[in-house]
């Protein structure tokens, strides 16, 4: 299955019952795929149809895994290109990227094997554009300079890892009762370990405060963090559990990571997908 077809299906609420609007959504993705359009669209504000994903998708482990594979393809290629770019300083940055790259490659292989083992054809690897139509130059291919390129490499890595954590979390419900749930949780936690280290490499806390994207993050990445300010957990406002600093807005938002809907995850990933 092609990536466009998959993303189409993933965000199409009629997936399980009909195909009437597929052409329409395919058209929207086609427009999104044009570089000019991409450059003008901030992260997460892509013109994807707004759907209440969780309710519409029902329990669909395969779609959840295909989304996971799409995000892993993206991360895997990003870290490969980052390591080849010559932009990364040696020492901690290179060591960290190498370790993460190893894991993302393993996740791609693992998810492909899992899908094939279940008799499902994995989505094909998309063609990515990490410059987002020339907006970024993380690999210093267009001469933006090593320092700026490196800052963009770190910012994109943070956005991808924090997105990955939220996206896997958002799919947990779709994997409930599926044999893939535990593996997805095992990957989910590794993405969080990556996110923490990348954030700390950028001199941020390893955890997300309120919905702050953090110093130095492009405004376009705000969609990755919107919703992280939630303090109501299981119907309880955790800021009301006590008066100490442990129940401040800051601590209460840091202590819980929030999920990202499939639609929102697709919208973010789509910005980097050409075809």
């Amino acid at each position, binding site marked *: 299955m092609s990536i466009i077809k998959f993303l189409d299906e993933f965000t199409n609420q009629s997936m399980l019952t009909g195909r009437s609007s597929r052409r329409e959504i395919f058209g929207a993705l086609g427009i999104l795929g044009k570089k000019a359009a991409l450059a003008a669209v901030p992260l997460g504000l892509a013109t994807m149809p707004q759907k209440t994903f969780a309710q519409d998708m029902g329990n669909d482990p395969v779609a959840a895994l295909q989304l996971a594979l799409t995000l892993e393809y993206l991360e895997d290629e990003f870290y490969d290109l980052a390591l080849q770019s010559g932009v990364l300083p040696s020492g901690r940055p290179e060591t960290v990227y190498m370790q993460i790259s190893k894991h993302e490659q393993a996740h791609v292989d693992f998810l492909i094997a899992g899908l094939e083992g279940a008799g499902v054809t994995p989505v094909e690897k998309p063609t990515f554009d990490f410059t987002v139509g020339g907006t970024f130059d993380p690999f210093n291919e267009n001469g933006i300079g090593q320092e700026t390129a490196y800052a963009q490499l770190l910012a994109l890595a943070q956005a991808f890892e924090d997105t990955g954590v939220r996206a896997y979390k958002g799919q947990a419900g779709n994997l*409930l009762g599926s044999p893939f749930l535990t593996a997805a949780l095992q990957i989910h936690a590794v993405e969080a*370990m990556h996110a923490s280290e990348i954030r700390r490499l950028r001199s941020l806390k390893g955890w997300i405060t309120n919905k702050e994207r953090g110093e130095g993050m492009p405004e376009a990445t705000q969609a990755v963090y919107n919703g992280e300010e939630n303090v109501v957990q299981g119907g309880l406002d*955790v800021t009301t559990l006590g008066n100490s600093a442990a129940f401040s807005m800051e601590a209460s938002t840091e202590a819980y990571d929030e999920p990202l809907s499939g639609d929102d995850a697709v919208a973010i990933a789509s910005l980097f997908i050409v075809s």
Partner: protein
Amino acid sequence: MNKKRIRIAPISNLNHRRQFLKIGGLGVVGAGLLVACSNDDDMGGDPPVDPGNGIFDLGKGDLGVLNYAYALEQLEADFYTKVVNSFYGNISDEEMQVLTDLYYHEVNHRDFFKAAITAAVDGNTDLVLPTLEFDYGSLDFGNREMVLGTARVLEDTGVAAYNGAGKLITDPGYLLLAGKIVSVEARHASAIRSLLNPGSADFAGDDYVTTDTGLSAALDPSEILAAVGATGFIKTAFTANNLP
């Protein structure tokens, strides 16, 4: 150095129904965690929560998992409370910030579970894990390596526990809650690991993430509780007769 550590490894011979194991604390007299486990798939009926010996059982199903998580969060919260009340000497600003944040987060988690479980059982506190007592034996809170090393083990253990407990949860809301917390525990584990070995790959090291599949650990409650029990940190006895 007589450093206490929780060993995370698959532990065999724990799958006998109703088998009670008294895990002796390492050098801690009277360590009281009783671990028993069941591989009984039959969730029908209502197994006794109180087996009649006055020892609290975590319970079965979602309630059992919530009480189990509450036990682990109580341990983490208590540990960091001690850490921040007597920071080791010459602690760096960065380490103080990280450990203080972890203290806040774990206290928040602990109190959340207490409130959430109490609400889930309609205030029947007989079904809510009591406040546990802890004893860290010879653990020297003035020693950076021991504090950070113990923090690493607790965070690693927390991640493996939540990863392994996910499949035991039947309510999507509780599963999401576990997901919201486990990734924060993983962020903690990464930060502590990074503090212990800066500039290395240890933040998600090959000792914890499998190199071929890129997966972090996932362990059953019996394995986690046996490992935690082996530390002797938990003084209050309880059982997990209805969790795998």
